């Protein structure tokens, strides 16, 4: 944003509204055409710009003001660019799904200053999501501030209402057919520049992207529960995902104060790929009668410095969810290390699914 004082012929690159010399109100300059005046290809990565090489452009607007812009595409000196990327700060985000994750994502977004359009299948689910977010917000702010933030979440039951968003994050049930249908529709509804992100934890980004006309804007953005507390976001680049989309989503995740990690599309991504065989092995240790659940968890907590042991974690995740992830890993890799320990299926048959059934490896009241 450029502010100018016509009287003093001065320019600010900051949102100042009054000229400090003559005290007149400044005006906002609205350039439209930019000419490339300088280019350097940068090979030195830094934490916020870890993907190299990239280009730094020195561009000049029609009024003679210069700007620095990052790009992944090379330009020639003298090239005219009609539009430059605006600030990273994203205004409008669509969230689809009002489960635990979708609700958590909506909360984090609104706390980061985004305007959220929260789409659900049912009115009562939206009410529940608002109630949950409200309760969470009240832990750190007063009622007035909470209401102000909640005002920035627009509830809707219509997918069409996402047609003005900068990015859509889908967090519906892990069902490839449902997600594909959704992305097919989003592809038609959303503007060409809108990034379409899926919060899948196990499905293939490429397969979801296939149904869209523009797969280079489709990306995986895997948040972890509880979203407001967990810092990690796995960013999964499909085969066709563009470098711009990856960078944009990385920066966006950082804007949400999350820590992004970028990876190729693969079964289980990074965390589940490592975690699931580990949890499975813990069940084997139990089923072979080597140690009690309590001792297995204590060993893992104190020996690995994990905050929670594997069996307690399995109870939290739910054995049914674990089983379905293991099965999908096995289907994708065909590797016997991804075969679930038989004890898991046995426990599920006995109704011991974990916390949600009040009993898993431990009893809950």
């Amino acid at each position, binding site marked *: 944003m450029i502010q100018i004082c016509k009287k003093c012929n001065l320019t600010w690159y900051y949102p100042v509204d009054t000229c400090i010399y003559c005290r007149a109100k400044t005006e906002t300059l609205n350039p439209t055409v930019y000419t490339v005046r*300088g*280019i*350097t290809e940068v090979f*030195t990565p*830094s934490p*916020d710009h870890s993907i190299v090489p990239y280009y730094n452009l020195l561009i000049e607007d029609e009024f003679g003001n210069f700007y620095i812009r*990052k790009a992944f595409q090379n330009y020639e000196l003298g090239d005219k660019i009609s539009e430059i990327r605006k*600030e990273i700060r994203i205004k409008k985000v669509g969230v689809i799904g009002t489960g635990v994750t979708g609700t958590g994502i909506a909360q984090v977004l609104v706390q980061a200053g985004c305007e959220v359009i929260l789409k659900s299948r049912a009115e009562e689910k939206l009410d529940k999501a608002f109630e949950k977010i409200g309760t969470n917000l009240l832990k750190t702010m007063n009622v007035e501030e909470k209401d102000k933030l909640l005002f920035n979440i627009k509830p809707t039951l219509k997918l069409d209402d996402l047609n003005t968003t900068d990015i859509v994050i889908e967090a519906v049930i892990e069902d490839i057919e449902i997600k594909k249908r959704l992305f097919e529709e989003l592809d038609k509804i959303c503007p060409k520049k809108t990034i379409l992100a899926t919060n899948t934890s196990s499905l293939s980004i490429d397969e979801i992207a296939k149904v869209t006309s523009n797969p280079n804007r489709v990306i995986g953005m895997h948040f972890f529960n509880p979203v407001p507390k967990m810092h990690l976001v796995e960013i999964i680049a499909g085969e066709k995902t563009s470098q711009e989309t990856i960078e944009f989503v990385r920066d966006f995740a950082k804007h949400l104060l999350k820590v992004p990690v970028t990876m190729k599309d693969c079964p289980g991504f990074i965390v589940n790929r490592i975690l699931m065989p580990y949890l499975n092995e813990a069940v084997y240790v139990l089923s072979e009668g080597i140690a009690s659940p309590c001792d297995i968890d204590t060993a893992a907590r104190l020996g690995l410095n994990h905050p929670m042991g594997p069996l307690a974690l399995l109870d939290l995740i739910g054995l049914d969810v674990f089983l379905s992830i293991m099965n999908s890993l096995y289907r994708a890799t065909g590797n016997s290390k991804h075969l679930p320990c038989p004890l898991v299926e046995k426990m599920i048959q006995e109704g011991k699914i974990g916390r949600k059934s009040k009993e898993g490896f431990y009893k809950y009241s």
Partner: protein
Amino acid sequence: MYITAIGRTKFGILNETLPELAYKAMLSALEDSNLSIRDIDAIYVANFCSGPFQNQLHLNSLISSLLPGLMIPIIRIETACASGGSALYQALISLTKFKTIMVIGVEKMSNVDPTKATMNISAAGDKMLDQNEGLTFPASYALIAQQHMLKYGTTLDDLSLVSLKNHENGNLNEFAHFYHKKVDMEMIRNSPVICSPLRLFDCSPISDGAAALIVSRERRSDRDVKIIASALVTDYISPAQRRDLTSFKAVKIATNEAYSQAKINAQDINIAEVHDCFTITELIAMEDLGFCKPGESKNYVREGRTKLDGDIPINTDGGLKADGHPIGASGVGQVYEVVTQLRNEAGERQVKNSEIGLTHNIGGIGGTAVIHIFRRS
């Protein structure tokens, strides 16, 4: 106003911690004079980035902890890479209040992951205009080099000559980061591209190190060097905000002011320490300081006029390129070299008949410019 004593550590990848480096430099400066630490009335500490690099701020109190019981006024000065020059500038102003002031420049940078270091250093650029766009300092100076090449026909080989000359000088300076490194044109030409067109050998290194000066209101000995000009000017922080990247306006204004304070002109300068954070910066400095006309610096380096035996030797200690660039200490290190030369104590790299020397210390891409001029007393 006089520089009474100078001291420094080696610059380079060092084992010492930040306080150890500062302590060694202070001790070294005291040993260069017959002064006691109790003669020091106040201290200015120049440091750029101990915050992000060491999570160590409140440096004035840290320095106080190195001087048990002294409890004198100490203040930290930060103006990015110009911190050293700025601390001296501030000390000289304060000589109206104090009789004897110590200036310390110190930086500890080598123990941080290089990608993190790149980010930390980019803090000297505008957060929104530069940093968010990934504009690191090598990238900034790459754009500047490109503009200079486009406007004046400066070539990559001209930049290499600057690097080569500074490495040759560094080989004669036992304190230099690259004292032992032998460099030739082929090595420079074949070094990897950092930010096109700049290659590794166009960039100064990340170094640890410290340097210290004792400045006095009155002359104390015949080894004192007189300060005949001190000027500091600031300018926009981002290259986006400039109209011309082939010259730094703040440097030109500070230089003019310094020449008029000293009642001399550019031709009177015998030696100069200029801020060669990148090779292109040395060429621009030569032009901004008036040693040559805009665009003519390339001819000077081609003719070898800035070498030790040239008519205007530049960066006789190896400059930031070869002596090293412990950011907060660099500006102080420049003064160390000029004083050493004017005292005729520079050994193998001594420039004959040096009467007047200049230091040119800049922050960022010339958002801060500090010029000092010294005369043998």
